[in-house]
């Protein structure tokens, strides 16, 4: 990943030097391992903080909403799709952006690694050639294959290369085909359950939710000036950790992302209690693909399916 990091630095320096952009958004090392922070470099001197490895799971598209500056932004496949969604929704102009494309090799799942560790993880090393991740802390050190600890959304990803970019930092990586990746296996599993089992499954899934809204805040799609959970008149959803309220929140949030979600996994990654929020969003993504042949963020021209009418839209749910 050193080659990626160097190349990002090089491009960022050049952009800032030539005054092509006012800032470059990328990642820098976080204060805790496995969690890199977003970093806004506004001068050439700051560029050296940039890093790139398998812990850059936050979605940077979250930080460009309604910005007026000219921005250089580091973007993987899913991030670039979210940028495209932003452009379609008028949240940023395409010509404001200089997109530094990253052919992505997947991010590691911090929840999985934390579960493996015998204590707090103090440092993480990545061996690019061997494809292994080594975590270590007080009294333990463990190496695992990166493939084993990939985030689930990365392991089933079919858009690793940026769909929208001005410059790539490396050659494109080979994409998985939909057949290889089988992205909807988990959704099918849930679909096969009976209504009561499904209900129990989601009850169990959400039982740990503390309503911290980290998933909402990490999501680049959740940019409403006022979120429905904060509306008090009428109050659509209570603020407590009542199971019904939690369920209402997750259902509506997922629904607001229907046809826009790119399955970047930022919600799951940010969740402090490790809820797989994607159980909701993935279903809607699958429906959009099956009903409307739509995948979010593949270009900047087409309007999303829930926003347009086509005579051939399915209507068999209407009596």
């Amino acid at each position, binding site marked *: 990943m050193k080659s990626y990091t160097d190349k990002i630095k090089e491009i960022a320096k050049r952009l800032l030097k030539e005054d092509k952009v006012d800032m470059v958004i990328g990642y820098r090392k976080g204060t805790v391992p496995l969690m890199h922070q977003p970093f806004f470099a506004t001068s050439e001197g700051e560029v050296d903080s940039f890093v790139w490895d398998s812990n850059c799971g936050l979605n940077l598209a979250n930080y460009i909403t309604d910005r007026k500056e000219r921005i250089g932004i580091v973007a993987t496949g899913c991030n670039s799709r979210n940028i495209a969604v932003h452009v379609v929704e008028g949240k940023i102009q395409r010509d404001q952006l200089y997109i530094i494309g990253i052919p992505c090799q997947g991010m590691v799942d911090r929840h999985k690694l934390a579960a493996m560790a015998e204590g707090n993880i103090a440092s993480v090393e990545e061996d690019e050639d061997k494809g292994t991740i080594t975590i270590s802390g007080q009294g333990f050190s463990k190496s695992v294959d990166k493939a084993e600890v990939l985030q689930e959304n990365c392991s089933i990803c079919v858009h690793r290369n940026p769909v929208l970019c001005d410059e790539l930092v490396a050659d494109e990586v080979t994409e998985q085909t939909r057949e290889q990746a089988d992205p909807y296996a988990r959704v099918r599993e849930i679909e096969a359950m009976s209504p009561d089992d499904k209900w129990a499954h989601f009850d169990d899934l959400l039982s740990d939710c503390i309503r911290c809204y980290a998933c909402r805040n990490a999501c680049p799609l959740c940019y409403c000036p006022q979120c429905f959970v904060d509306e008090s008149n009428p109050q*659509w959803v209570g603020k407590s950790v009542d199971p*019904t309220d939690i369920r*209402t929140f997750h*259902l*509506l949030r997922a*629904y607001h992302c229907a046809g826009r979600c790119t399955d970047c996994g930022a919600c799951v990654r940010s969740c402090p209690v490790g809820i797989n929020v994607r159980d909701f969003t993935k279903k809607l993504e699958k429906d959009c693909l099956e009903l409307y042949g739509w995948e979010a963020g593949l270009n900047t021209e087409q309007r999303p399916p829930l926003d347009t009418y086509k005579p051939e839209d399915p209507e068999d749910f209407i009596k």
Partner: protein
Amino acid sequence: MADKEPKILSFLCNWCSYGAADLAGVSRMEYPSNIRVIRIPCTGRMSPKFILAALRQGADAVWVSG
């Protein structure tokens, strides 16, 4: 539950189904009394929030008709 009649909250478009319901009434047709009607200006006014709010407050089912 068994002895209670279910409550069905129906959201009817002013121009379509609400008109149909009105016509049904004027023509003295009979339909089940489980249906509680809310008139909305257009089905486009419908929001997923309404459906959830109805279910949360104890409706047995929701019927949206345009």
